[in-house]
C-alpha cells in the first residue's frame, strides 16, 4: 500500500504535511525537542512577536473551563530582535517550516516587525495576529474593524515578500467580511480562529479568576464554532484557509479539512499531550490509507451537505 501524500500548499507556502502548531502554544519550538521531532510537523508558528519585549499580564493568566481554557497571557515575548538573534538560528537547524506570529499596537509596529522578519533568514511565512483579545490596544481592535484590518494588512503586505497569513478573530458578527478584507488587501491565506473572549468568576473570592478579567477561550469547547467559521470563510474567499480550534486528534483536524481548510493548527492540545501535533499528522496518514485516498489535498472542502444546489 502506498504511503499517502500529506503535502499541501498554502498559497506560496509549501508544507510537508498540513499540521502546524498554533502560536502561543508551542513556545519557540525548541521546548518540545524532548517530546517530538520538529521535522515531523508541517510547520510551527511561534509565540506572537512584538517590536520590543513584552512582560505580559500579571497572574492569574489562565484557568481551565469545561473542555477548554481561558488565557490572558498578554503577549509576553522576547521581542522580534531577540527572536531573530537567539531563537531563529537554533530553529534553522531543524527541517521544519517556521512561521512568525506578529503583533503590534499600531500599524507602524506591525510594519516594523514584518520588515525585521523579512530580512531574517529561515522564516517561511508571517502570520498577523490581529485578533488577540488579551491586550489593551491593538490586537482584536484590528481584527474586528474591517477598515483597520485593511490598513494593517496592506501595510504589512507592502513590508514583506514572505507569504502573509492574516489570523482572523471569531469575535465578530460575520467572519466572512473580515476574511474578504484580508483577501482584498493581499493576504496569501487566512488562519482562523483565534480565541473567543470569555470570563471565569471565582465565586468564593467574588473576583474574576484572571487578573485581566477576560481571557481567550481555546480548546475542544470551541471546535464546533471554529469548524463553522472555517466552513463559512472557505466558501467566501479564494485564498487558502488554515483552520484551528480545539483540535486534539486527526478526526478533529479532518472536520476542518473537509470543511475547507488546506492546513490546520494544533494549539491547546500541545499543553496536554506535548506530541499531540505529530499524533494528528500520523492519524491523518492512517485515515487516508484506510479510505484509500492518495493525497490529503483530495479531501479539502469536500464536505457534502446535500444542499450543493443552493450555492
Amino acid at each position, binding site marked *: 500500500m502506498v504511503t499517502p501524500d500529506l503535502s499541501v500548499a498554502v498559497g506560496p507556502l509549501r508544507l510537508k504535511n498540513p499540521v502546524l502548531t498554533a502560536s502561543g502554544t508551542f513556545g519557540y519550538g525548541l*521546548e518540545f525537542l524532548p517530546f517530538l521531532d520538529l521535522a515531523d510537523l508541517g510547520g510551527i508558528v511561534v509565540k506572537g512577536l512584538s517590536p520590543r519585549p513584552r512582560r505580559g499580564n500579571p497572574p492569574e*493568566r489562565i484557568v*481551565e473551563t*469545561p473542555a477548554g*481554557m481561558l*488565557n490572558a497571557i498578554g503577549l509576553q515575548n522576547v521581542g522580534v530582535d531577540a527572536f531573530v538573534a537567539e531563537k531563529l538560528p537554533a530553529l534553522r537547524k531543524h527541517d521544519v517550516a517556521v512561521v512568525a506570529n506578529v503583533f503590534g499596537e499600531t500599524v507602524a509596529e506591525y510594519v516594523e516587525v514584518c520588515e525585521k522578519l523579512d530580512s531574517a533568514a529561515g522564516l517561511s511565512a508571517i502570520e498577523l495576529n490581529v485578533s488577540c483579545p488579551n491586550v489593551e490596544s491593538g490586537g482584536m481592535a484590528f481584527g474586528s474593524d474591517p477598515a483597520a484590518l485593511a490598513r494593517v494588512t496592506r501595510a504589512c503586505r507592502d513590508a514583506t515578500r514572505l507569504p502573509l497569513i492574516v489570523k482572523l478573530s471569531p469575535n465578530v458578527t460575520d467572519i466572512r467580511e473580515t476574511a474578504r478584507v484580508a483577501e482584498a488587501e493581499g493576504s496569501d491565506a487566512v488562519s482562523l480562529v483565534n480565541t473567543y473572549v470569555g470570563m471565569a468568576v471565582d465565586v468564593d473570592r467574588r473576583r474574576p479568576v484572571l487578573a485581566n478579567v477576560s481571557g481567550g477561550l481555546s480548546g475542544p469547547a470551541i471546535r464546533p464554532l471554529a469548524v463553522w467559521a472555517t466552513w463559512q470563510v472557505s466558501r467566501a474567499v479564494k485564498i487558502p484557509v488554515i483552520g484551528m480550534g480545539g483540535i486534539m486528534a486527526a478526526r478533529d483536524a479532518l472536520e476542518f479539512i473537509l470543511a475547507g481548510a488546506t492546513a490546520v493548527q494544533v494549539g491547546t492540545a500541545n499543553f496536554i499531550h506535548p506530541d499531540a501535533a505529530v499524533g494528528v499528522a500520523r492519524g491523518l496518514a492512517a485515515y487516508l490509507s484506510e479510505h484509500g485516498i492518495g493525497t490529503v489535498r483530495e479531501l479539502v472542502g469536500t464536505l457534502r451537505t446535500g444542499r450543493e444546489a443552493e450555492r
Partner: protein
Amino acid sequence: MPQDLPAAVARNLDLGHGHFLLEFFAPQAAAEMVPGQFFMIGIPGAEVLLRRPFSVCGLPGTFADAPEGSVQVLYKVVGRGTALLSSLRPGAPLTALGPLGRGFDLEVASGVRPLLVAGGIGSAPFPALAAGLAARGTRPALVYGARSAGDLPLLDWFRERCDAVTVATEDGSLGRRGLVTEPLEDLLAGAGATRIYGCGPSPMLRAVAAIARSRGIPCEVSLEAHMACGFGVCLGCVVATHAGGGGKPVYERVCVEGPVMPAERIAW
C-alpha cells in the same frame, strides 16, 4: 529529561481528611528525579481537560514498603481533578509527564542544619526531600503547620524520619496554637547555621521568607501556580521575580525557573 509516560494507578491510599497517597510506576523518573520536582498528571477520559501538577512525594528510599521503580504523590482533594483522581482504583490509567521543573538544592554544607517548614498539603514534597537530605547525612528538622490536626498528612512518617518535628495548628487541636511562624522564630532564636526549605500557601511562604531574610538565613520555597503545560510553553504559571536584575520585576515561569526558587528571588 522529561518523559510523557502512560502510567496506571498502583495504589491510591486514603490517608483521611481528603488526603491521598498515589503510587504509580515510573522507573526512569524515579531514577532521575530530584525532590521538589513535579509531574503533570492526567486522567484519560475524565471531564477535566488539563493535567494537574503534583510534586513528587516519594522517591526510591522515601517509603520503606514502596516497590522498586515506583514513585508516590501526596495530594489533597480541593476540586474536580483531585476528586476524580481520588476516585481511581488500582489499574486505572494515568498520564504522567515528568520530571518537571527545578527541585530543591540538597547540598547542605556540613554543620548547617536543614529546616523544613510546611503548611498543610505543602508538606507533599518533603518526604522525598527529608529522605534525600538524610541520605546525604543530615536529618532535617520540620515545622509543620496547618488549620487543624486533620490537615497534617504523613505526620507519623515525619516524626520517624525527621530530626525534630514541631507542630502548630490554627485551632490548637494539635501542637502549638497559631501559625508556623511563631515556632519557627523560636527555633531559629539561638540556633546554629540553618538552611530553610518552605512549601505551603503563599502567605505562609511570604512570612517565612521575611523571617529568613531578617536573619540572613538561606531559604528555598516551592511555589504554586495554575499550570496548563508544566514545561514552559504556555506562560500561564508566571510569578514576579527580581531575575531581571534591579528595577522592574520580570515574570518567570514557576514550571521551569521553579517551582523551587530561592526566596530572595521572588518579588513578594
